Structure formats: C-alpha cells, structure tokens
C-alpha cells in the first residue's frame, strides 16, 4: 500500500504542486491540507512546503503558526508521525515551536536562488534514513531568510544530540555552524532550507533530493 503524504497549503504557499509532484514521482499519494483544516486526516507523513505563507508578513511563519492545521500537525508529530518542513515550512515549524531556533535574513541581505552542496550529518532521522553520513547532495536553496540561528545552549544540544541533519559545504546564507537542516529530539520532525523536491530530475540538474524524500516515504510506511 502506498503512503499518503499531506501537503500543507497556506494562502501564499507556492511549492505545494512541486512537493506533490515529487511525492507522486516516488509512488506515494499527495493530499493537500488546507490551512483551515482542524485535522490532518489519515495521512502517513506531512510536508510543510515552501513559499510565502500569509505573504511572510510580519515575519516568515509568524502568522501561519496560528492556522488551525498547525495544531493538527503538532498532534501528528507528537504521536510520532514524520513531518518535514522545507524552506518556508522550516520557518513555520520553528515559529510553531516544533523545532528550535529561528531563520533570519541571509548574510548579505539578498535573496539567494542557487545550487548548494549539502553534507549528510546523521542518518537517524525520517529524512535521511536511506542516505549515508558524509554523502554530498546537490540540492538548490531558494530563500531570503535562511540564515539559521539559535542560542549557544541550543546549538550545543543540537550538536551533542546529533540533531544537525544537513550542513552546507559552502555556506550561502550565514547559518550558524553551516546548518542547513535540523531535527527535533524525537527525530521525526525535520526542517531544512534547501528544496529536495527541486532535485528530482536529471533534466533539471539533480536527482539528489530523491534519497531524502524517499527516506520520508519509507519512514511513513513503517
């Protein structure tokens, strides 16, 4: 039986179609979850995709965290369900308190859309279980506020608990400790700034996103 993956859609989300395409490509079934929904239904995993939820007004994710669907996503995560926030979705998850830290404006104060080389730092998460530590993945970034920051205590904890999932080989945005993605303590919620759904076709330049999204689907059907 193939997995069903909920794709959260806020007004202003724009990567929902691309995320759904990638899910379909991997043989699973995407299901759009409108932000007003009070439940995620019987999905096996949740993607909070990229975009500009509520226009990123005030600050990315600051309004989206109050959408009813986010309570449902938090419950789903608390019950162990795999949740991945990509780009704006990562920002939403930090605002919602599902992941620590925050994403601030890029060093250089410019939007950056470019390929990025990522190093896999741990495989004990729902996003990296099928990858190998040390793998270098070529996956694009596309953001203005991707500069990850957190308190020194949180950073120490992320390091000691092996919760830094992906690091940039060549840091494009000033993130502390070159962090591109992290996970929660239970390792079932992952946030990352790069877009694995954009690295799913050789014609488009990379297929390195498949191992990440494939991991998510594998985690979803456990």
């Amino acid at each position: 039986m193939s997995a069903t993956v909920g794709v959260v859609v806020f007004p202003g989300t724009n990567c929902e179609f691309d995320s759904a395409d990638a899910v379909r490509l991997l043989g699973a079934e995407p299901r759009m979850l409108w932000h007003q929904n009070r439940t995620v239904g019987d999905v096996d995993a949740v993607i909070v995709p990229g975009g500009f939820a509520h226009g990123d007004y005030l600050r990315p994710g600051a309004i989206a965290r109050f959408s009813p669907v986010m309570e449902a996503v938090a419950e789903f995560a608390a019950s162990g369900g795999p949740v991945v926030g990509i780009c704006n979705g990562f920002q939403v998850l930090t605002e919602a308190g599902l992941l620590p830290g925050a994403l601030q404006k890029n060093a250089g104060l410019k939007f950056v859309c470019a390929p990025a080389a990522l190093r896999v730092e741990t495989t004990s998460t729902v996003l990296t279980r099928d990858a190998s530590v040390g793998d270098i993945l070529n996956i694009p970034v596309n953001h203005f506020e991707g500069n990850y920051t957190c308190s020194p205590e949180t950073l120490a904890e992320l390091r000691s608990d092996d919760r830094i999932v992906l690091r940039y080989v060549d840091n494009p945005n000033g993130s502390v400790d070159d962090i591109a993605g992290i996970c929660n303590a239970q390792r079932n919620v992952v946030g990352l700034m790069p877009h694995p759904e954009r690295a799913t076709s050789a014609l488009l330049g990379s297929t390195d996103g498949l191992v990440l999204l494939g991991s998510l689907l594998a985690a979803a059907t456990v």
Partner: protein
Amino acid sequence: MSEPVHRALGLTDDEARQIDEILGRPANHLELAMYSVMWSEHCSYKSSRIHLKRLPTEAPWVLVGPGENAGVIDVGDGIAVAIRIESHNHPSAIEPYQGAATGAGGILRDIFTMGARPIALMDPLRFGPLDDPRSRWIAEGVVSGISGYGNSVGVPTVGGEVVFDPTYQGNPLVNVLCVGVLPVERLVLGQASGVGNLAVLLGSSTGRDGIGGVSVLASAGFDDADTDKRPSVQVGDPFEEKRLIEACLELLDAGLVVGIQDLGGAGLTCATSETASRGGVGMDVDVSAVPRREAGMEAFEVMTSESQERMLAIVEPEGLEAVLAICDRWEVRAAVVGTVTAGPGGSDGGRLRIVDAEAGVLADVPAASLHDAAPLYDRPRHAPTGFNEDTRTGPVTNPATSCDDPAADLLALLCDPSWVFRQYDHQLFLNTVVGPGGDGTLLRLRHPDTGADTGRALGLTTDGNHRWCAVDPRVGTALIVAEAMLNLAVVGASPLALVNCLNFGNPEHPEVMWQLSESVDGMADACTAFGVPVVGGNVSLYNESNGVDIDPTPVIGLLGMVDDLTVPPPGPRLTDGGRLVVIGPAPQRELAGSAWAASKGQRGGGLPSLDFGVHADVARTVAQLIGGDMVLGAHDVGEGGLGVTVAEMVAHSGVGATVARVSDHVDLFSESPSRVVVCVDPERLTAVLNVCEAAGVETTRIGVAGGDRLAVKGLVDVSVADVVAAWRGRLPGALGHGTTQG
C-alpha cells in the same frame, strides 16, 4: 483656474472637442477623466497604431493575436500558451522597487485573465552606466522589486537581460514578459455578455494610488524635477496577487465566469469599458459600491485609480453565491459593482454609465468610444540628419580605427549577470531545464491540469540591442529577431511566436517616429521571412530625460518549441580537447553598432547585413545538432562578437581555448550575424561537419578547447583565471551589498 480641465488631464483641445461631439454635449469632469486615461498614449497607442498594422500576425497555431490581454498560441497536446510583454519604465525610474514590482504584478494579471496559469517571468532590464550612483540605485531597487514580488507571488523569473549604458541614465527600461499555460478549452476572453449579468470587482480595495498613471506618468517625458510624480506610482502586494491568481483560476475551472479582465492602466474605466465594448453591450457601474481604501474619494479617482491586484469578473446572477464562496476561501474581497446592460444594436454598442447610489448618473458615454474612437495620429517622421536611406549609413562620430590592446578591450566587455538572477526564484514549478544566464531559457512543457510531462519543451528568450538600432533601426531590429532565433537554436528550439516591447523616445520628435516606423518594418521583414507571427506587443514612448531621447530600443520576446527533449542542451561550455567550429558565414568586416565600437565612443556607420535564408538554415542546423546531442557546447555570436562569445564559453566552463583564423580586432569584435560557436568532440567532428554541409551551411574550424589560457593568435593571450575574474567580478564589484528595500 488658469488651465482648462482637459489640458490638466493631458487631453489636447482637439481631443476635448472630439469628446464633446461624441457625447453631443460638453463632457463633465468625470467623463473627461475617463477619456483622458483611455485616450492616453499608453492605452490607445494613438501614435503607433498606424505602424503596428504592418506586422504579420497570423499563423495556423495562433489562437489570439495582438489586441487582447495576451497573445495565445496552440502548442499541441491540448495545451495553449499565453504570452505578453510590458514596460514599466517610468514608474521604475521614480520608485525602482515598486515600479518593477507592480510591473510584474500587472503582467501576471494579463496572463491569468486569459485563463492561463503564469509559469514564467522574464525581465529585460536596461540601466544607466555602472559608474553613475543613481543608476546603481535604480538597478538595485528594480532587481529587489522583481525579486521581492516575483518570488513571493510564486512565479519563477527564468531569464531576461541586464544592460548598462549611458543612453538609459535618465530613463531606465524595465520590461517584463510573462508566459502562462492553459488547457486549450479553458481560453477566456475579456468580454462581457448576457444582459443582467453582474460585474464583480475582485481583490484589493481602491485607493488613491496610481491616479492618472497612464496619462501623467507613462505618456510624457521626464526631467529632473519629476520626483513629484511619485504619487502616480502604485504599490504592490504580492500576497494579495497570489490569492487573486488562485481564486481566479478556481473560478475559471469551475466555469463560473463569463468573462474576466484585469485592472491595470486606467483602472476600472478600462476594465469596464473594454469588457462591455468587446461584448457589444453596455454596463452600469455603481461607483459607490466599489470598496475603497480611504474616505472622501471622488468618483473620477475611483474610476481612474490604478490600485494593484484587482480583477473584474462578469458572472451570471445565479452563480454569484458560488463565486463569493470561492473568493471567501482565498480571502479575496469581492463586490458587485455593475450590471451588464443591453446595447441598442448596430455599431454604436452599449453605454457605459457611471452611477452613484445617491447622486444618480455621473457619466454616460458610448462604451466603445473610449477605445475605438481614440485618436489615431500619423505623426511627422524623418530620418536623422545625415542618414542615407539608400546606403543605410549614417555619419560616423569618433571613427576609431586601431585597437591597441585587444585583450584589455575584450575583458572589459565581459559581464556575468548572475548577481541579478541569483536573487530570482528561477526554479519553481520544476520546469526549468535551462535557466537564466545562458542564451535561451528552456522549460519543460507539462499539461497545466494533470502535470503530465509532454516530453517537449518551451524555448524562451528576450533580446534587444540599442546600439544596432541607433545605427539603423530597420536592419537593427531585423538583427535582433535573428539573434533571438539563434538564442533559441542553441537550446534546440524553433521559433513559434514573437511579442515586442517598443521602447522609444518622444513621438513628437520626427526622428523618433522615423525610428519607430523603421523598426516596425525591420521586424515585419524578419518575421515574415522566418514565418514567425507577432502575437502581442506594447509600445512605450516618451522615454527621454531632459529633452534627450533614449536610443531606439525595441525588445522582443521569442517563444519556441523543442519537440523531443531527451537531454538538456549543453550550454555555452567548453570541454578539454573539444574542437571549436563556427557554424555560419565568415564575418562581414564591419564594426558599426558593435559593443567594441561603443566602448571607443564610436556611433553611426552602417550595420552588417542579414541574409534571411542563410540565417534560417544556420538556426535550423544548430537546433538539429543540439537536439541530436551532437555537440559539447554552443553559444551564438552576439554582442561583443566572436571574442566575447569564446571568452564567455571559457568563463562558464573554466576551460581555456586556443583560437586561430582571426585576422585582427575587426574579426574579433564584429557582430556580423548568423554565427554560432560550437565545441565538438573530435570523434564527432566529421559527423557535425557533414550535417552542416548537407544543410548547405558554412563552417570554419577556429581552434581547440583546453589549457588554462584564452589565446587568440596574434591578438589575445590571457589566463582563464583573468577571464573568469573579469566576467564574474563586474556586477558584484559595482553594485552594493545591501538592498534599497525589501
């Protein structure tokens, strides 16, 4: 009051008289305001229409030609493509961020008005020189505005151009092109029909921003004191636009709208009168029902406001509830503001009546007269002094004959545009096979409803060259069309349709009208010869500052098709050991209009000539080689000539090249047309040459790729590192490290 109202609104005395004749009585203030915006140069094309008629517009695949919100062509597989290009020059000169942002917003609405989902934006940008602080401020603001709006609204910006030249110092050019896809059967036109149907205004409330934008701002020249025109620039809200796009596409999918029209230039006046006159009906508009941003707005302000992110949908009364429900879901404001009324029949069409719940009828005009009766001018035109129309040459200023340091001149012409396009999301929707920075853009063509890949791809490019057109606008424009064809050829695409954005100076100057007329003829010649229909266009006049016109700058957007996309095109790359071959005729020994000549302050002369037949053969052959995966790299020869072409290939790949058979700087920098440099695996060289020979296309073997130097025998010998540094460093070195806004 010293000045009559009509003159303050930008209408001439003759135009005011004509309006009174149409109405059979003196027009009131509101009516004059409505005519002034609709009869503005920007909306009515009153100076250019007479010339635009000469462009070829027909082909079997054209579904909608010029005159609608966008051109639409049938690309097969049940898919239609909508395409349009627009200018937002003057707003961007005054307020770069918002000017550029609202330019993107406006053209997106033109595309989804046709029922298409916008899938790509492109931005041909032209600014003053990099050493001018104000030009740098404008460039940074414009790029930020495109980035801020385009990325947020969720439409990728997949290409464009960026040019810096003194001719744009007081008047930058910010053009924007948009492409959308739709299932053929969903095509909708912006027309009202069905007496009793309702006109529903969707989106933002109406404010005092952009009042008279088309007449005051877009249809007159600039001088230094014109920052007081700032209130005529609108402010964009990409989040509102994103919701509006989704709501409108859902309304169209549900079959709930009879017609739909965006509100752009001339606002509600344009949208109501256009939908009514296209449908041969009338409309009563209740101005008091229009949601407003502020109290105390006059009727003329409501009717001419250019507040952004608004659409007018014509819906049947029984469908209203469903329409409001969809709008509510997307948090899009919707208000019934009008009713479709009967036309009296005959040619007169219906009346556009502006009413107020309390004050009664405020304006009552024949709807069609706002468009069809607009003045048509055949303005005086003559060639610039000294231009010989028989030999097509003009006087040469500062004739430079020698070239002391070809290597230095070559490096000075290199410029990597990635500083600009890294700020644009160019990958959304997973279609971008070749993004910005190459010759042409290539997008996978997928079905707009199902997402199913057709295995085919759309090629896109924008092109302009003011230097060529300043020398000879007719040949120059034909050369631009030719260059665009080669940009498509190197990504394997063949052309299907063209749109143009004609950026010219003050039409009241006879030389400018001559440039416009000649440019249209050059475009018509090339399009006819190449079998490419013109499906839409935009004319931007009064591009002048302090009385000096910009160089004529027609910009074209060319859409093409790759019928079988199996491998990505190789791009402008070199591979170690690859053989370098020029496909196309030997260069004409002519530097007039070239980037090198301009760098020496030289203007005038006569352009290289273009042989349409030879050119079409070259383009077809190159597309065939790319499609067959027969070459390792390809780059067409354009601005900067063969020297810049090879240097850019070196810069893109970090691989050197050794080139011979370039006799002097004329051969190195000539922008003689119809040439493409390819890098070929030695083992496939014979096969490639055979393909060319069979097509009757000339080839010249010029050298070999490899090593860590770019050497052109007897002329240039520089390290690859120096080439890369010069190319990559130009923009980051000049443009700031902070944005002006956003």
